[in-house]
């Protein structure tokens, strides 16, 4: 059941330690205000599933010591360079890395939303990505008349999906627009939590213009109103990335001490703002 609207801190209190937590890619509405709240609450040993990639969000959670496992197609900061805390943590063996590939994460979530045990996917065979995935199986396509190996991916059902959406209404519906992979994630996840940028005065499900890009309240467990909630990342159609803040982060987070100082500064700012 939806309980709109809660505070961001209350929202993230629903994310337990060791949860399998699905994170959106940078262009799909990254819940940065909620991420700072999650770090403030001191969550530990998360298994973060990047859908299918991540950047600042994963890097901050890793740097803050919240993460045990990262499963991803990639973690990077685009033109700002490598994700410094991710890179350090993997190089030092401080986190477990489960390398995947973007369409494998999508396909496994689609299997999860259907309640299927697995999804097949072409490609992969002979890559070291596949070679290091003991949980993936290769079988022969049972419909082919000749040997035709294909990879089977076990379904993924995240414990929690957390994302930042453009609109939320008082019924608990959340509009993600063209970020439709978030609808798949919400279907597959046991629990979905959203922060929303703006409030929609109406019913998103009842409006034909919005319903195709709406996650119905049925799947949404709690919503928080978080204006500017993706900052310093972009929210498509609403605001651009804060390039200066991202550049500052990458420069500061090259060292552990630099990251800690940057984090302290930003977590404090957020608390004051809240």
């Amino acid at each position, binding site marked *: 059941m939806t309980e709109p609207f809660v505070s961001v801190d209350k929202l993230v209190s629903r994310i337990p330690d060791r949860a399998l937590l699905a994170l959106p890619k940078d262009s799909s509405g990254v819940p940065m205000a909620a991420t700072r709240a999650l770090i403030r609450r001191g969550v530990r040993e998360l298994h973060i599933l990047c859908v*299918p990639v991540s950047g600042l969000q994963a890097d901050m959670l890793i740097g803050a010591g919240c993460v045990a496992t990262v499963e991803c*197609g990639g*973690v*990077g900061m685009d033109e700002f360079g490598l994700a410094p805390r991710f890179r350090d943590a993997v*190089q030092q*063996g401080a986190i477990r890395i489960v390398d995947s590939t973007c369409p494998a994460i999508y396909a496994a979530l689609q299997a999860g939303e259907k309640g299927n045990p697995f999804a097949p996917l072409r490609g992969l065979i002979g890559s070291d990505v*596949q070679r*290091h995935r003991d949980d993936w199986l290769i079988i022969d396509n049972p419909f082919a008349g000749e040997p035709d190996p294909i990879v089977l991916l076990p379904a993924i059902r995240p414990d929690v999906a957390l994302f930042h959406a453009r609109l939320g209404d008082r019924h608990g519906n959340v509009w993600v627009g*063209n970020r439709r992979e978030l609808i798949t994630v919400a279907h597959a996840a046991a629990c979905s939590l959203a922060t929303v940028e703006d409030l929609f005065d109406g019913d998103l499900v009842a409006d034909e213009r919005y319903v195709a890009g709406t996650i119905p309240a049925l799947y949404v467990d709690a919503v928080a109103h978080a204006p500017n909630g993706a900052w310093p990342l972009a929210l498509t159609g609403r605001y651009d990335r804060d390039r200066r803040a991202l550049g500052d982060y990458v420069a500061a987070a090259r060292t552990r001490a630099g990251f800690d100082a940057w984090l302290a500064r930003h977590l404090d700012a957020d608390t004051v703002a809240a």
Partner: protein
Amino acid sequence: MNAAATTTAAATEEGDGAASVATLVGALLPMLLEVRTVAVGANSPIPAAAALLAEEVSGGRVRPMILGSDRYGPFSDGGPELFDRAGQGRIDVFFLGGGQIDGEGNINLVGTGPYPRATTRLPGSFGSAYLYFVVPRVILFREEHSRRVLVPKVDFVSAPGWSPPGVRRTGGPHALLTGRALFHYERAARRFRLASVHPGHTADEVRAATGFAFDCPPGVAETAAPAPGHVALLAGPVRDKLATIYPEFARKRLPAP
């Protein structure tokens, strides 16, 4: 205003001897004009510029699909749609890079040294472990042309350049473009063949900077200069469009009209 001259000025910012964006885009253009659907991944401004130029030059027959752009990502079904379309064989060209690329066309986007505790960890394989198998013509693009990048054998195979018989594969490497040269990939031989060297570079220099063996025909050509009309398009409509996706790149490395 002489657009070609400005291109050269912009290129010198990247260091002496670096190929200009116009040269690189000019080298890509003929390969893109042969097809209809060109997809470009995130953080790839030069391939994106080439795809947008191909759209202009072809009068819209070549269709660019640029990740990270709403306008040039003509999809309405979220992140999986590009991969779904590629799986059907409906993406003709895709670009991949690599922290390491070897002579058989294997690419490494994961890291150097041991796995998983890499010496230098890179972001990850992204869609390569899939797209390399299903996109008919994958163009490898990496500006840095050095023995550090072009290695005898990659440390981690994000995606293999070829697959044994029996593994279904409808795609793979087509060409490799660097800041020094253009190679074509010979699928039967599983090797690269030097196609042309960019102005100011030589085959000997390319050989010295390449960590893997490749075929080198005698008297290899120089990469053709882009047509003046194409340079003008690059400085005009392509630059304007690219600025909506990569503002910094468009400002620093593309010529102004």
